[in-house]
């Protein structure tokens, strides 16, 4: 015998209250009378003054109260079912494609309806488990005999904006089958065809396919190309569309930037065709959004977000005594309108607030200015100079290596490998004569600085065959100057690492407006399950992450299964009229009977 809602026993305090009420009534109500002479004809009550001896009404009231509490607790008996210990595992797909419309409803609603029918048809007293399958599997409701809680959890489910990863959820269900004694039934509610899943995962499971529509146009590519230190007018936008349906579709693509629409294209796409559209001369910088005005089944992939960086010149304070480095950077500044360089005497510190980035060589300034700093190694001493560089490791996704192919790292020839700083992480790692040492060390986003072992002057980065080195320097200046304006564009399902101090809390504003607090010391990985704009505040800094749903396999919603639809589940003979499997209903009836009896007895007494 177990109980589905043990918290109901907390209401037992009312029993104490009932007893106290009787005691209080007995002790407190004294009626002074002039004489007992006239009261001898009135029968004395059964209550004794010496101890608590309640009357029949009390026992009826107590019975009603206890029955109500037990009814809320909903006890169940393991022998209530003809099929004892039968277990039902429900796996519900919550991937993005489950948001697809099927007529007036969604695939998730169809799955929910089918799961509800399965729950109602399950044998009374059996155990149930609900597993959500999306980017990661999650056991929403562990084994329980209370179908109401499973139905409630099922009603509260919502599809995510990520792709389907059904196998991990099926693995959990498969494990439940393996551990049981043969009475476990697994029902999978998904739009993924059964045959697309490996047989070993779906063995012994009942597949409930939902959805037949394939009408979906999607933005499968949305790229903003903006060169280093380029303004928005130099940026280009390219949008790639794909028609996943088996019919030709017409539609319109509109682009807006900072909420202001600036371009619209009408298009016709044949069945399973793709098309790409380019846009230039952007009217401004900021959040750029592409949107398909097409009433297809899945609206999630009709929208894409990206970012056009606003332009402003980078003011560089150059602290060096090396005229060659000054000359090299001056040449770059002359060719790039976005860079302004002022040579500063290291002995006379200037007003640092007038600059965005400080560039120095070796130990040109002590202490270092409170600015994002690019520090070139060496200083011309040549003590650790080498001309045979071999870059063997790098962080490919770091923004300072944007646009540089790994094979181009071999373009570095000269470096002065001094003592690397300890405040950052190595982005480029080099090996020289069997010795490994960092070539580029970059600090954290909240403390932006970089150390580059090469000497731009001696490396002569202005030569055409040194283009990767020049690009690396420009990337570094761009990254150092970007500061708080950093915006990242990622795909839903990716995890973003919080950069701030692990000991400080972080606040995340999700696309749906919900505020998520990440406590200090907790996991610093943030899974992005919703498409839209995330704003992350940590360590006094705010950054923006644009999450796009972009998954061609998930957007291809036309997944016709070769298997025929499953028959409707029939209610078991042992299933009660009520959805509760326990004795709750009978206890409620018992409470009502006790109350009625109490009323009758009270009426007779009066």
């Amino acid at each position: 015998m177990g109980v589905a809602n043990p918290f109901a026993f907390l209401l037992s305090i009312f029993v104490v209250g009932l007893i106290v009420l009787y005691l209080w009534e007995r002790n407190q109500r004294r009626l002074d009378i002039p004489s007992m002479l006239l009261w001898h004809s009135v029968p004395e009550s059964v209550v004794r003054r010496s101890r608590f001896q309640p009357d029949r009404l009390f026992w009826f009231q107590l019975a009603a109260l206890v029955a109500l509490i037990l009814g809320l607790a909903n006890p169940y008996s393991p022998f209530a079912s003809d099929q004892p210990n039968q277990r039902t595992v429900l796996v519900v797909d919550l991937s993005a494609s489950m948001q697809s419309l099927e007529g007036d409803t969604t695939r998730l609603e169809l799955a929910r309806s089918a799961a509800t029918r399965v729950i109602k048809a399950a044998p009374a007293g059996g155990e149930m488990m609900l597993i959500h399958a999306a980017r990661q599997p999650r056991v929403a409701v562990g084994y329980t005999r209370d179908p109401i809680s499973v139905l409630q959890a099922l009603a509260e489910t919502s599809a995510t904006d990520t792709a389907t990863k059904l196998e991990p959820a099926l693995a959990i269900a498969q494990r439940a089958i393996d551990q049981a004694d043969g009475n476990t039934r697994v029902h999978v509610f998904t739009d993924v065809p059964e045959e697309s899943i490996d047989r070993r995962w779906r063995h012994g499971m009942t597949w409930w396919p939902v959805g037949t529509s394939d009408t979906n146009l999607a933005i499968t590519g949305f790229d903003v190309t903006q060169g280093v230190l380029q303004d928005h007018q130099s940026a280009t936008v390219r949008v790639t569309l794909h028609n996943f349906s088996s019919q030709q579709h017409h539609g319109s693509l509109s682009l807006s930037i900072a909420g202001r629409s600036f371009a619209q294209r009408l298009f016709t796409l044949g069945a399973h065709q793709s098309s790409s559209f380019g846009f230039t001369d952007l009217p401004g910088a900021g959040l750029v959004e592409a949107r398909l005005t097409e009433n297809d089944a899945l609206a999630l992939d009709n929208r894409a977000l990206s970012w056009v960086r606003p332009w402003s010149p980078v003011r560089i304070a150059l602290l060096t005594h090396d005229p060659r480095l000054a000359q090299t950077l001056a040449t770059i500044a002359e060719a790039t309108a976005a860079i302004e360089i002022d040579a500063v005497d290291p002995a006379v510190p200037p007003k640092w607030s007038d600059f965005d980035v400080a560039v120095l060589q070796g130990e040109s300034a002590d202490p270092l200015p409170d600015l994002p700093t690019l520090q070139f190694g060496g200083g011309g001493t040549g003590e650790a100079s080498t001309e045979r560089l071999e870059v063997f490791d790098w962080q490919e996704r770091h923004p300072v290596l944007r646009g540089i192919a790994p094979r181009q790292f071999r373009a570095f020839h000269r470096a002065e490998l001094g003592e690397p700083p300890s405040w950052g992480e190595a982005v480029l790692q080099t090996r020289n004569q069997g010795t490994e040492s960092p070539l580029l060390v970059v600090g954290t986003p909240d403390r932006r600085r970089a150390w580059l072992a090469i000497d731009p002057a001696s490396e002569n980065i202005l030569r055409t065959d040194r283009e990767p080195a020049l690009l690396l320097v420009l990337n570094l200046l761009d990254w150092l100057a970007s500061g708080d304006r950093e915006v990242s564009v990622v795909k839903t399902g990716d995890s973003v690492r919080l950069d701030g101090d692990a000991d400080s809390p972080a606040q995340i504003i999700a696309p749906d407006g919900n505020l998520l607090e990440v406590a200090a010391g907790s996991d610093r990985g943030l899974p992005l399950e919703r498409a839209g704009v995330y704003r992350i505040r940590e360590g006094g800094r705010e950054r923006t992450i644009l999450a796009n749903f972009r998954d061609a396999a998930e957007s291809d919603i036309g997944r016709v299964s070769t298997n025929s639809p499953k028959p409707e589940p029939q209610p078991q003979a042992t299933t009660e009229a009520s959805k509760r499997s326990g004795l709750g209903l009978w206890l409620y009836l018992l409470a009502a009977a006790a109350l009625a009896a109490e009323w009758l007895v009270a009426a007779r007494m009066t």
Partner: protein
Amino acid sequence: MPPEVSTADGLDSWSQAGSPAFLRSLDRLRINVGEGTTIHPGNNPVPRATQDSGLEFAKHRPYTPGDDLRHIDWNALARHDSKLVKTFRAEREAPLHLLVDASASMATPASDGKFRAAAAVATCLAYISLRNRDPVRAAVFDEGGTRPVAPLLRHPQRLPLLVDELAATKPSGTTNLTRAVESYLHSTRLPGVAVVLSDFLVAAEDYQAALRCLLASGYRVAALRVIGDDERNPAARTRRVRLWDVESSQERIVDLTQAHLARYQSALDAHIDEIHRWCKANGIPFCLIETGLPPSRALTSALPAAGVLR
């Protein structure tokens, strides 16, 4: 059934029943002392009634065998040839004896104010008696017997003595009417009209013995039963109550259901009827003093109707 007062007007507060204005409204009333019951000349204790000897001639009455031949009016016999006996008015005054119950039951239920009403009625009766030049002697009684609350009053100006003493009396103790009456009779030798104001919540034997004792001592007796609304309809906030007898300290836990209340009220009615019936059988005027009704009605309607006043 005893006469009852059914309407309310005039002075509505028992606390103002002793005011001069209210007392003046009682000037026309007299204590009904009744007729003499004895033939012994000079010993008739009931004043203002005709008797066989005295100074003031009252009337003739026919001779009946057994009358003293000395009392035959021989002149009338000679003139009318019929034997007539002369009767005279007594020379003595008719004292009013007020016996007020001061046991604890007279203060319960407190909201009824039974003792206050009894004291007000006693004050008014004393005023009426004093206005008619008859002395008043008042006493309260409880478990300890009787206690005079004022000296023998002979003038209305002494009435405040009685009022103050009654106001200062706090009801307490148990009721023992027989012992109280016996105690009172030992303290006085002036028979007259005895008015007993009580709730009579004692055994029938007790009040019957007490009233018989007064009758046997030559008193004309009147019994006034004081009762209030809460005594008639006891109410409580809860159904189950613990009854507490303020005199005997007995306890009884009962359920105040409608049926049980009906039983109580039936017992109360039977108790009052029994007193009334017994008093009527013994020639004792009996009247209910309802504390929930105005005192003017009790004094101008109920008491004259019962024969206590005229």
